[in-house]
Each structure stands twice: as structure tokens, then as C-alpha cells.
């Protein structure tokens, strides 16, 4: 987290970010995930990037989604590989550089192997 964001403050994004993940993932190799950030997505006010991180993966930064006002909605979805039970975080970076984070804990039954 430090390497990615340095000392920039991370605010609580519970009111802004909806991070959808199963509570229990049967197969860590394929965990459906979606992130939606409330934002008007206008040139003046939009989400510039969404970072998805999982604490227990050997490489915690899973994906970076760079968005533009043309996206219309700050929404992304994909399937993750998770190595172990642990927290998954979504960080939204606004066009003014402010950062918001939400965290969800996921129980992984069968690990997505060494990722």
C-alpha cells in the first residue's frame, strides 16, 4: 500500500464504493468481483482509477482500471484469483487525486494456487 500510494491519505470510501465479492469463495482460482463507485463521471468530477488489491496474494496489486468520463459510470467487474482467505481492497482515485478505500474479507476454500 505504501509503495503504491506513498503517504497520501486514504479516506474511508464506504459511502462511495460498492465492492461486490462473495463472502466465501469455493474456488480461489475464479472469484467474481465487481466495483462500482458513485460518481457523476463528468470531466470535472470523475474516478480516474480503481485499484484492486488482495492482501494475501504474493503480488497484492491484482489490477488497475483506468477510467475516463467516457466510461459514464465508474463500474468494473472481473474474476480474481485469490491465494488465501484474507482482505480484498478496492481503492478509487478521483480526478483531484484524493483516494478512497473499502475492504472486504473473503474466505477462500480452495486456493487459487500460487498466483
Amino acid at each position, binding site marked *: 500500500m505504501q509503495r503504491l500510494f506513498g503517504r497520501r491519505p486514504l479516506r474511508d470510501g464506504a459511502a462511495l464504493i460498492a465492492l461486490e465479492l462473495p463472502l466465501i469463495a469455493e474456488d480461489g*482460482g*475464479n*472469484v467474481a468481483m*465487481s466495483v462500482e463507485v458513485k460518481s457523476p*463521471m463528468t470531466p470535472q468530477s470523475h474516478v480516474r482509477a480503481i485499484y484492486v488489491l*488482495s492482501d494475501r*496474494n*504474493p*503480488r497484492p*496489486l*491484482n*489490477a*488497475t*482500471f*483506468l*477510467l*475516463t*468520463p*467516457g*466510461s*459514464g*459510470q*465508474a*463500474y*468494473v*467487474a*472481473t*474474476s*480474481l*484469483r*485469490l491465494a488465501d482467505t484474507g482482505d480484498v481492497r478496492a481503492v478509487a482515485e478521483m480526478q483531484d487525486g484524493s483516494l478512497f478505500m473499502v475492504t472486504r474479507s473473503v474466505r477462500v476454500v480452495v486456493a*487459487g*494456487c*500460487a*498466483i
Partner: protein
Amino acid sequence: MSPIGEVKVRVSGSPARGSVARARALLIHPNERVERKDGKPVDRNYRFVNRVVVSYAGRDIAEFDTSTSIGENPSFGFAFRVTEPGTLKVTFFDTHGGRFEGAVEVKPA
């Protein structure tokens, strides 16, 4: 199993002009995971998707930087603002120089 490189792009519903539509893109690809031996990663050139570019009507609207932590046959959902008739194109790039493209025509009602 389908061969590597097949891309499917799908827009949900028939979006009206000015609305925001959601779409999904799927690529048939192994998205190799890094092997580990005695806890250390085995060093070799793994084949996985590391960049995805979404463009609509000739403009890039989103770009995803991805890693091996995305599952096999990576699929991505995203949104876009429907402004005009045009092509929604999704291009996947992998670490072996592969380039896979899928497109769908968007015809706003």
C-alpha cells in the same frame, strides 16, 4: 477447448443515446499463473494478459492493467456512455506480444 485468442464482447440490453450501458468482454486465454518452487517464483516468461484497452467510436475510454491474479479466460465488465453509433472495441495484450481484438457495433435506439 476454444483456441487462445477468441474475444467476445457483449453489450447488455439495447441502450438509448445518452444513457450509460454496461458491457462485458471475454477472452479465451490461459492467463498463466506464476509457478512457485520452495516458496520462490520460478523465473520464466509467463503468458498472461497485462493490458486491456477499451475504445468506443474511435476514442479510448478505459484501460486496465492486469496481472496473473485475474482468472483463466479473463472477463471484464465495464460501463460506457452511449453517445453515437460506433464500434465498441476491446483489445487484450499479453506478455508474449499477443494482441486479441473483439468488437461490437453499438446502434443507439
